[in-house]
């Protein structure tokens, strides 16, 4: 359904918070996902829950699709308005509302940039651990809706582990609050968890209360370089099996190292086949002990060289380099398609090898980096959308990668969400009954299907046979 008149919306948000020019509609037709684009009919910047409620009521009546959009950095086409309708922005809802040092919580509006939260609480000696690589750009509303993870996920978990309370607007315009500042709450179904990671399909999140923890007293960062991917992967498994839980354990392959070096010129060894970035935080003695032990393990597993960051700046630089990995890889070919295959950490080495073999088999260029410590890998394909034949091979390769991940006990996405891009594969992971249950939930909350339609649920599931039989 198209927006018939913008007048009622203008009355709600005011003329300065509505966008509909050609340029503006185009500027909100994409997100960070390659190869997906569609224009909305209208872009709105509401200022509070009440305005959103009013907007939703009109949309419910007129069956207008509503797509919530943070900074559009998601990699699953989650904010592409593929069925037109309204894009809701949170750029006018970007305030930190309350820091509660007694309960160790912070309450924010959804449009706050993640890094601003990290920085704000660290000033006060507190810590909000989730740190997606996109944290300088992404909004907390986007993080909660994608249940984003980050470089510290291994030790500290992901966004859902820190969400304490949410205010959201239901698809009928009702404003609802779930959770609270309390540490324990088991009254009824866990609606809070249902909302986290719901990718804008169940409601619009308008306020978020996050749990904070004390800032670790110290941290240390080390790197190890390897002659083979296998050695790096074995190091990861060995570190975990020695019962060390590092704050960060990140992996980059040779192609990624070189791409990052092209961007940052930070002196990474271009000839290394793989590198591991490791960090430990906590009390100084423990940190020192763990980091030394990790370095020792890396050496034992065949690291060609290892080093400790000598200053905070150097450690930050290393992490910034890792965070830039995806975009830096984009230098190599016109189109960059990133995947988010995740396996149990014991299977990392097998998964890395599988990705290499699959890339060779389909003659496509795939570089891999990722959160090795939590088994979350980002095989990234460098290709060119204009080459239909190559794109076909890319698709086949990715299907096989998903399948390999699932066969190793893994999943099709560890942190980026399903969106529209991965919707056709969701059934592979959760099965037919899983899809049915999710559909029932969606149907009963959003019977008109106005909240981010076309996302998570695909019209059709990809046939697994395609890759097995090669047609």
């Amino acid at each position, binding site marked *: 359904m198209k927006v018939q008149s913008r007048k009622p919306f203008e009355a709600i948000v005011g003329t300065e918070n509505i966008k509909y020019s050609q340029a*503006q509609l185009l500027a909100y037709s994409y997100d960070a996902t390659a190869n997906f684009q569609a224009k909305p009919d209208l872009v709105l910047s509401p200022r509070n829950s009440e305005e959103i409620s009013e907007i939703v009521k009109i949309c419910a009546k007129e069956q207008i699709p509503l797509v919530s959009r943070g900074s559009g950095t998601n990699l699953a086409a989650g904010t592409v308005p593929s069925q037109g309708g309204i894009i809701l922005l949170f750029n006018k809802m970007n305030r930190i509302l309350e820091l509660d040092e007694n309960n160790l919580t912070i309450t924010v509006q959804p449009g706050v940039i993640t890094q601003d939260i990290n920085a704000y609480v660290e000033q006060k000696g507190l810590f909000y651990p989730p740190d997606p690589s996109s944290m300088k750009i992404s909004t907390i509303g986007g993080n909660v809706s994608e249940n984003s993870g980050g470089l510290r996920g291994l030790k500290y978990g992901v966004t859902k582990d820190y969400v304490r309370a949410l205010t959201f607007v239901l698809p009928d315009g009702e404003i609802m609050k779930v959770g609270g500042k309390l540490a324990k709450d088991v009254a009824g179904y866990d609606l809070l968890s249902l909302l986290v990671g719901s990718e804008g399909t169940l409601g619009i999140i308008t306020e978020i209360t996050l749990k904070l923890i004390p800032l670790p007293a110290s941290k240390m960062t080390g790197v190890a370089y390897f002659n083979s991917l296998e050695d790096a992967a074995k190091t990861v498994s060995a570190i975990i099996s020695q019962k060390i839980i590092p704050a960060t354990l990140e992996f980059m392959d040779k192609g990624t190292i070189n791409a990052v070096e092209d961007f940052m010129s930070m002196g990474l060894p271009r000839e290394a086949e793989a590198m591991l970035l490791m960090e430990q935080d906590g009390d100084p003695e423990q940190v020192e002990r763990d980091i030394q032990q990790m370095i020792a393990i890396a050496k034992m597993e065949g690291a060609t060289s290892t080093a400790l960051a000598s200053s905070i700046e150097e450690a930050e630089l290393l992490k910034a380099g890792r965070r830039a990995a995806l975009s830096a890889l984009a230098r190599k070919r016109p189109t960059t398609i990133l995947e988010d295959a995740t396996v149990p950490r014991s299977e990392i080495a097998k998964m890395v090898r599988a990705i290499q073999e699959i890339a060779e088999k389909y003659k496509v260029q795939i570089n891999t980096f990722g959160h090795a410590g939590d088994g979350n890998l980002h095989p990234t394909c460098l290709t060119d959308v204009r080459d239909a034949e190559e794109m076909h091979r890319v698709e086949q390769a990715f299907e096989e990668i998903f399948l390999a991940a699932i066969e190793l006990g893994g999943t099709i996405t560890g942190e980026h969400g399903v969106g529209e891009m991965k919707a056709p594969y969701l059934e592979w992971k959760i099965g037919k009954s899983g899809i049915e249950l999710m559909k029932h939930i969606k149907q009963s909350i959003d019977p008109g299907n106005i909240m981010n339609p076309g996302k998570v649920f695909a019209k059709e599931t990809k046939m697994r046979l395609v890759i097995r039989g090669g047609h």
Partner: protein
Amino acid sequence: MQESFKEHVSEDHLMDCMKCGFCLPACPTYLITDQDETHSPRGRIALMKAMRDGDVVWDGSVEDAFDVCLGCRACEPACPAGVQYGSLIEETRVAIQQVKPQHVVAKSVRKATFDGVFADQGKMTGTVKLVQLYQKSGLQKATRKIGFLNLFPPFMQEMESVLPAIETKKKRTFSAKPKTTRVAFFTGCLMDTLFQETNKRTIELLEWLGADVQIPAEQQCCGALHGHSGELEKGLRNARKNLDVFDSDDFDYIVNNAGGCGAFLTEYENHLKEDSQYAEKAAQFSRKMIDISSLFVKLGMNARLKEMKSEAHSIVTYQDSCHLRNVNKVILEPRSLLMDAPGFEYKELIDASSCCGSAGIYNLLQPEMAKRILDLKMKGVKELQPAKIVTSNPGCLMQMNVGIKREKLEHEMQAVHIVDFLYEAIQKQS
């Protein structure tokens, strides 16, 4: 218009953008518009592509999205994917310029700028003589009084009020060292006219550091303003003339003291790489090009400043020239000079790296946006309360003075060119 985009805007460059958004926090126009993607690098690149592909048709909103870009290129170093945004916006402006007749105001400003004063140095000097006459004859006071300037857009009036007083006196303060380095001076059109005094001091300081400074005659405006506004051919016409004039083995360096010009000068190489007659000359020219702060550092000014180190009496800060920072990557050199300068304590300005809103003639064409960007800049300035705000480009210098005036801070602080700042700091010591 679509055809023009197809012809002028490189598809390959457009494809380099993966829409990751890493550039967003670096872009002043995105931040100042409450994060409007229309005014982000990513949004503009998407629009360029859409123009090419026919997904949008040319209208005021598309035009506005491109016009609002400062061309500050802060998005470039922020982009891990290596997108050459500078080339893209330049190409876009050429594409537009080929098809689109300009608005009346923009047209008159542009005409005066590109075909008039900036087209050749003779006219520029003529203009300056007029300004000089205007200032000396008391006409300046008179016109200010009778409100003649109200006829101009508001920003022009503010600019007029901060024009430097043009001086005519000549006196040498420093004695030159034996000459060890041969330097050709690219005087720059604004710098050589409105800021003549700064140029003289540039030469004096260079000679003090042991440089033999030549000023090749008949040099032209660098062409940056033309290039950044879609008049690339006119810009390159100037470039070729400059390449002829500076084509000599006698120089170790070609130095310039205007950040905005420096970027375009080093990019001669890029722009003319297909030109069989000039490619070689342009490459050599760009290789020798250096900005004044970097040359001061190379010629050992830091050590000499340290020798005169004296107690700090007030705060000095630095506003980057966007092109010097983002294109030429000169970031540390000017700061190191200020840190070593006697009599001052250096403190970093909040967001020193973000554009002040001057951006060529942006402040004349987009006064409302320029004002908002400048207001934001002045917030940081007010927090720091420096006595001197040092700049490396005449546009930024005037813009910062407009900001100071607007905030009524002219009795507490001053914006100065880095050459003038150093000159005065050294002079006080000797």
